[in-house]
């Protein structure tokens, strides 16, 4: 299967790989997995408590090229967005941007789940509850 140029670009030159301090109250961590293939992804955000803007984002993914590209793209996208804006990023946006084929859609779902889990974790840490439908990362 041929990967799109954008996937190859993110895969061979991933942005924002790394770790943020998990114990910091400003940091939200989302750890998610795709049971289809057993791949795992961790996405972390650092949020400005005043403005709720995501100032920093890091990821680490053990998975296929599409999952790495999806999470790399996700970190690029969430940076500079507010929590509320970041919540609107959906896997279909990622699929479009990276031109993922149908069998690789679950890899983009993983990235969306990771963003939501990271935001959920941050909210839980900071006692933010107004968006009740967000699944809080355990």
């Amino acid at each position, binding site marked *: 299967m041929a990967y799109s140029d954008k996937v190859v670009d993110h895969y061979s030159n991933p942005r924002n790989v790394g770790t943020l301090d998990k114990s910091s109250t400003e940091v939200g961590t989302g*750890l*998610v*997995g795709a*049971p289809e293939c*057993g791949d*795992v992804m961790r996405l972390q955000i650092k949020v400005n408590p005043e403005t709720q803007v995501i100032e920093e984002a890091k990821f680490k993914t053990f998975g296929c090229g599409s999952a790495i590209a999806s999470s790399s793209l996700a970190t690029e996208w969430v940076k500079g967005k507010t929590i509320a804006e970041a919540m609107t990023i959906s896997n279909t946006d990622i699929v479009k941007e990276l031109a993922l084929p149908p069998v690789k859609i679950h890899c983009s779902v993983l990235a969306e789940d990771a963003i939501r889990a990271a935001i959920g974790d941050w909210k839980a840490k900071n006692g933010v509850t107004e968006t009740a439908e967000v699944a809080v990362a355990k």
Partner: protein
Amino acid sequence: MTNGDDVSTPPQSAPQGADYFSVFSLPRLLDLDMKAIERAFYRRSREVHPDRFAQASAEKQQWSLEQTSLLNDAYRALKDPIARTEYLLRLEGITLAEDAATADRQEKKNVPPELLAEVFELNMQLEEMRMNAQMGEDDPQLRRDLEQAQAEFAGQFAGIEAAIRTEWGKWDAASNSDNSADKQAAAERMAALLDKRRYVRNLVRDVQQALGN
């Protein structure tokens, strides 16, 4: 000897739209007597074997081919315990994570968060191990940790497979007593175990690779 196949009752066809259990005239149960199925497979294979129909009509020959391939598919699907469990769950309309791969949204995530954390940690160690290996270094402590992890995950893997077999018994009992609530519950537990099994299987494989054994 004349070609007896046209006069005697022809070997029975598997029922139309048959599932693989009915190919062997079995109910949809999981704890199967594989010896008996194997014998039935060889007996039926001989009965429908294309060689026996070399002189028969084109129609008959076609039938023989179809039956032979159905029989082979059915045997393959039932022979392997995990494949059999997955096949039955699909028949029963349970969505397995693997099938959800192309779906836009997954049904649910069955995997406990603690396992994800473990999987992630271990992957980090594996990566370190590979990087060390690339630099021509060997960190004995890391190697020991990984060997320990290998034993642990191999144990977990065996545990998951044993748990799946336990669920077979529950499924079979519920099927025999026609208890659909219990059947459903057992099916869901099996689906969750299969999901877990996939992560652990990957780990066992990756650790083995990294340790080079």
